[in-house]
């Protein structure tokens, strides 16, 4: 099947006073049309920067894309200049962010910001206005008419995120990049927003790249998962396979430490150690220091191995890539 988005060996680095921080260091994955890929990992593993790199929105001048290819719609969009990217942003590829509080302009009305998403891509103002109303209704705002004239601070967090979704979907993008869309919201609202996104995705036949650290959301929404650690993909598999049978020690540790998986009365299982310093990745396997299965071989960096069924694991353990069943 033709992949909608194919990221090949992306490296996004940052120039800092401590040296070069290789936040994204050789990441590859793909997203199939209409399907959802989740990228999971803890804070600092590079998943947000990966998402930003696709639209070339990496914070400048410190950040830059060192190398890699990103195939979308038959071209390598990393070749596009920053200004040429504008044709894609908000049109073919849309993005929503984590903090609805600060992601909207506080001095412009909702209606203005929503219309802008359409007028910058060529729609007339009246057409944009009508469509804005439709969109607000579609994303579940109770009083869309009033909302058009309101300012962001007059809405709740959940409502603001719905507005962000409306803005992102205004031009019917083929791909939605969602960077932790529910992390900053109340637990009750989280479920609502996630189901709204899923609904809209099915309706529009849209593909989604979902960045999250919440395995619960992944299990409900994603078709494929890539697990990131220390700037690299350490495991990738279809969701069901990953949840049923995680192969990489890090992924196994993640699942084992879920409260649901632990027995009452026992200490919660945790992973020992901390993430290595991003300015100074270890030369061997980056997870080795914290790995219970650590061996001599781990002093050389493991490559990402692909199994016959399409699963990927970056580990020296022979059992990592065994074919089960």
């Amino acid at each position, binding site marked *: 099947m033709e992949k909608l988005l194919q990221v090949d060996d992306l490296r996004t680095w940052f120039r800092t*006073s401590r040296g070069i921080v290789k936040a994204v260091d050789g990441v590859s994955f793909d997203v199939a049309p209409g399907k959802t890929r989740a990228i999971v990992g803890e804070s600092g593993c590079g998943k947000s920067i990966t998402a930003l790199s696709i639209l070339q929105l990496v*914070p*400048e*001048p*410190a950040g830059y894309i060192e190398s890699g290819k990103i195939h979308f719609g038959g071209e390598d969009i990393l070749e596009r200049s920053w200004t040429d990217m504008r044709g894609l942003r908000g049109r073919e590829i849309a993005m929503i962010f984590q903090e609805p509080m600060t992601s909207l302009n506080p001095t412009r009305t909702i209606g203005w910001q929503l219309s802008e998403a359409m007028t910058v891509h060529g729609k007339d103002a009246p057409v944009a206005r009508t469509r804005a109303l439709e969109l607000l209704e579609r994303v579940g705002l109770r009083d869309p008419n009033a909302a058009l004239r309101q300012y962001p601070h007059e809405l709740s967090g959940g409502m603001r995120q719905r507005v962000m979704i409306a803005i992102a979907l205004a031009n019917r993008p083929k791909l939605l990049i969602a960077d932790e869309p529910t992390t900053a919201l109340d637990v009750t609202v989280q479920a609502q927003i996630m189901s709204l996104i899923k609904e809209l995705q099915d309706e529009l036949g849209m593909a989604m790249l979902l960045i999250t650290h919440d395995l619960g959301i992944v299990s409900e929404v994603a078709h494929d998962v890539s697990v990131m650690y220390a700037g690299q993909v350490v495991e990738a598999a279809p969701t069901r396979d990953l949840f049923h049978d995680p192969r990489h020690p890090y992924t196994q540790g993640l699942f084992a430490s879920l409260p649901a998986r632990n027995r009452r009365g026992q200490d919660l299982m945790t992973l020992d150690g901390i993430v290595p310093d991003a300015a100074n990745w270890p030369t061997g396997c980056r997870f080795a220091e914290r790995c219970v299965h650590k061996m001599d071989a781990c002093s050389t960096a493991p490559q990402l191995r692909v199994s016959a069924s399409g699963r990927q694991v970056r580990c020296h353990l022979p059992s990592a890539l065994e074919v089960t069943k």
Partner: protein
Amino acid sequence: MNPNLLHQLYNLSPVALVGIAIFIFLRARQTPLWGEAFRRLARNPSARTAMAVIGIYATIGLADSVGWYDAATQERRTVIDAIFERKPERTYSAPLAEMTTGEAKPQKIREKHILGTDSIGADVFYRTLKGVRTAFQIGGMTVLIVTPLALLLGLTAGYYGKWRDDVITYIYTVLSSVPGILLQIAMVLVLGKGIIQICLALGITRWVGLCRMVRGETIKHREREYVRSAKALGVTDMVILVRHILPNLLPVVIISTTLGFSNLVLSEAILSYLGVGVPDNVGSWGNMIDAARDELARDPVIWWNLTAATGAITGLALSLNLFGDALRDAVDPRLRS
């Protein structure tokens, strides 16, 4: 307050200022925040240049503070006097000129003057150098009076709150409501012209700003967790203030003082123009600029007095501003890219 004591302090203030600055620098270097900041500063070329220039000024000021009693002239002579004083001419002369100007019968110059001479024939370069010490004295004295006072009152107001805060806030609100220059002029006029009075006048406006800032920062820190937990542990207020809050105030105080010092130097010049500044016999850049107004109206134009004084002031103020900015950027945890 014994006026003689104040005068002694005034004379020594450049030395005191430099001494305190060096002390703070050496102690701060050991802390992680400042150590990192200084390293960043050292890499910044404009900061290095600014620091070097300030250092030159400070050296001149210190050299002018070291003196001895010269039996021959019955006066005090300093290192600067010894090196740079020249025999006075009759009147004005242009830089490196051979003859005096501006009088009916020009006379031949007795010695070379790099920047010319002024109305009484004194060497302009020498006068400019003498002005360095005055600037440091006024600035230093003001800083020495104002900073402890602002810290004390600001900390009290911010930390203890309630009536203490109300009183102190009322005082600085009233003081800041009067237009700045007005307050300074009025103070000098009624207190009389004199070095100490000028420092008080300049100090008042500076005090208001600093006290307000210290109070704001104290309030901010008072609510922080580390203060609350210290209080819960039973640590006394005094210890909290001195060992916890005060060190956190130092960055803003030091940066504000550095940038404020340049304002002080500039303000002194303005006050001198208005006639309420340093007395004429004491060398000061403000006095030199004051004389310039008439000098520019003469024919041929006497421009070197103004240029020398302006260059000296601008050099010092510019270096302080650049250094202060660089210091603020280096200390500020939110690195601007």
